[in-house]
């Protein structure tokens, strides 16, 4: 394509927007609303996932072994278990460490009560491994594999915590997908209407172009430019809004509700904004491109 033709198509696309400025503004507003909600959900979801990920790291599976196994044998078994790809980390607790921990937890201030056990460790044979998973959703299969492992006596785990975190994650994801999907459909519909109006404004011009021998590509280009510009504007505006809103919201929550900042840390904007910008711009351009490209097709027939 010649540079002059490129500029011509760009100029005509911008002219289209100016010709039916109200329709264009309505389209920009709808895409902005859609992308703003996307940015909002994006911020919320990545922060929730950050929290969930942290929480997942603290939920472990405890594995106890047959009492007749020596500590060395348990450690060897532990090394084999540690080769499972789902496992991110493992901590060994010997029977002595377990008893010391219990004494600290239950007999604090009344150490004399524990002295009755003297050297007779009541938790002998309770050496265990605390296992942490990369992804909490794999807990069931890991537990099943552990139970099948020879030498493993008991596997303790919290099913409800894992399920709770997984389903919370899934609900947020599905909810945001549904809302964004509906808004996407509305955006495509509105851009499509705007392009239809622009096409009717240019009906005479398009007809002349076809008789002169312009290619479909050349006829379509100004409309696609129009769609892309609307899409881009619809992405930039909510990104600016989200940028300042996120900074203010995080600052406000941290200052007013200190309990929140004790529970978890918000992800810094610099970490999520580049990804958010890339997805939002692609989304805006994508909506603009597809809506205009397919809408104008029906106006190309001669």
């Amino acid at each position, binding site marked *: 394509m010649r540079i002059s033709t490129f500029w011509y198509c760009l100029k005509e696309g911008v002219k289209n927007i100016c010709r039916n400025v109200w329709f264009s503004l309505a389209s920009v507003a709808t895409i902005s609303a859609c992308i703003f909600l996307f940015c909002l959900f994006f911020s919320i979801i990545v922060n929730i996932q950050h929290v969930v990920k942290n929480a997942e790291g603290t939920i472990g599976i405890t594995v106890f072994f047959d009492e007749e196994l020596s500590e060395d044998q348990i450690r060897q078994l532990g090394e084999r278990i540690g080769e499972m790809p789902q496992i991110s980390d493992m901590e060994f607790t010997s029977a002595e460490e377990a008893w010391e921990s219990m004494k600290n937890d239950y007999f604090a201030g009344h150490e004399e009560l524990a002295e009755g056990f003297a050297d007779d460790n009541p938790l002998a044979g309770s050496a265990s491994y605390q296992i942490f998973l990369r992804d909490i959703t794999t807990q069931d299969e890991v537990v099943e594999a552990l139970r099948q492992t020879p030498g493993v006596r008991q596997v303790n785990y919290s099913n409800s915590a894992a399920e709770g975190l997984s389903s919370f994650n899934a609900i947020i994801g599905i909810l945001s997908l549904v809302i964004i999907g509906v808004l996407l459909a509305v955006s495509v519909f509105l851009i499509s209407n705007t392009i239809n109006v622009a096409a009717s404004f240019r009906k005479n011009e398009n*007809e002349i172009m076809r008789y*002169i*021998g312009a290619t479909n590509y050349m006829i379509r280009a100004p409309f696609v430019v129009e769609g892309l510009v609307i899409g881009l504007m619809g992405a930039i505006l909510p990104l600016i809004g989200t940028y300042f809103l996120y900074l203010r919201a995080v600052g406000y929550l941290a200052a007013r509700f200190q309990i929140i900042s004790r529970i978890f840390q918000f992800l810094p904007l610099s970490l999520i904004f580049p990804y958010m910008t890339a997805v939002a711009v692609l989304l805006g351009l994508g909506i603009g491109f597809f809506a205009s490209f397919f809408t104008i097709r029906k106006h190309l027939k001669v």
Partner: protein
Amino acid sequence: MIEITNVYKTYDTGNKALRNINITIEDGEFVFIIGRSGSGKSTLLKLLLKEVEPTSGKIVVNDMNLGKMPRRYVPKYRRRLGVVFQDFRLLKDRNVYENVAFAQRVIGASPRKMRERVPSMLQMVGLSSKYKSFPQQLSGGEQQRVAIARALINRPEVLLADEPTGNLDHHNAIEIMKLLDKINHMGTTVIVVTHSNELVNLMRRRVITMDRGCIVSDEEGGSAHEN
């Protein structure tokens, strides 16, 4: 050369617009197609523009068989034709220069080529001094000259004119006919569909008369007769 052989056209509505049309037009000819409303003249032009397809028959324009032409080649084919309409179809928001340059721009011609060709084309149609005027500032005759300049700027081999003088007064109609004659003398094949018997009789060129979708006469140096 244009060869139309055994062409029939029946629209979806059942209207039989053309019946067994056979016409051969040599390069550089000037041909009038006349007939009453509904006689099939405009359908014939639409077939030549590949705007509609014949129900049966064969149309060959400059060795290109339109029936076998894929849709993607239609734009390139149309660049070899120029079209002029009764209602001029100029772009009202662009001046004379831009209207003529538009035809070059949309086929991707270079700005240099446009700067070379547009002024000379405007000179040829006698509108050099009005290149900055907008269509609404021009007379009907002048607007049709702009439309002719636009149709010719890409140097087509054939010029199709559908009632080019239909919206013009007698004086302007004759001026446009003179211009079409001049273009024909420069080597372009000119096909004019018209209702104006007076102009046909004045020009004394080949006249094809149509009635109810059929050719009823085809005379060299012919004339039109009141029915």
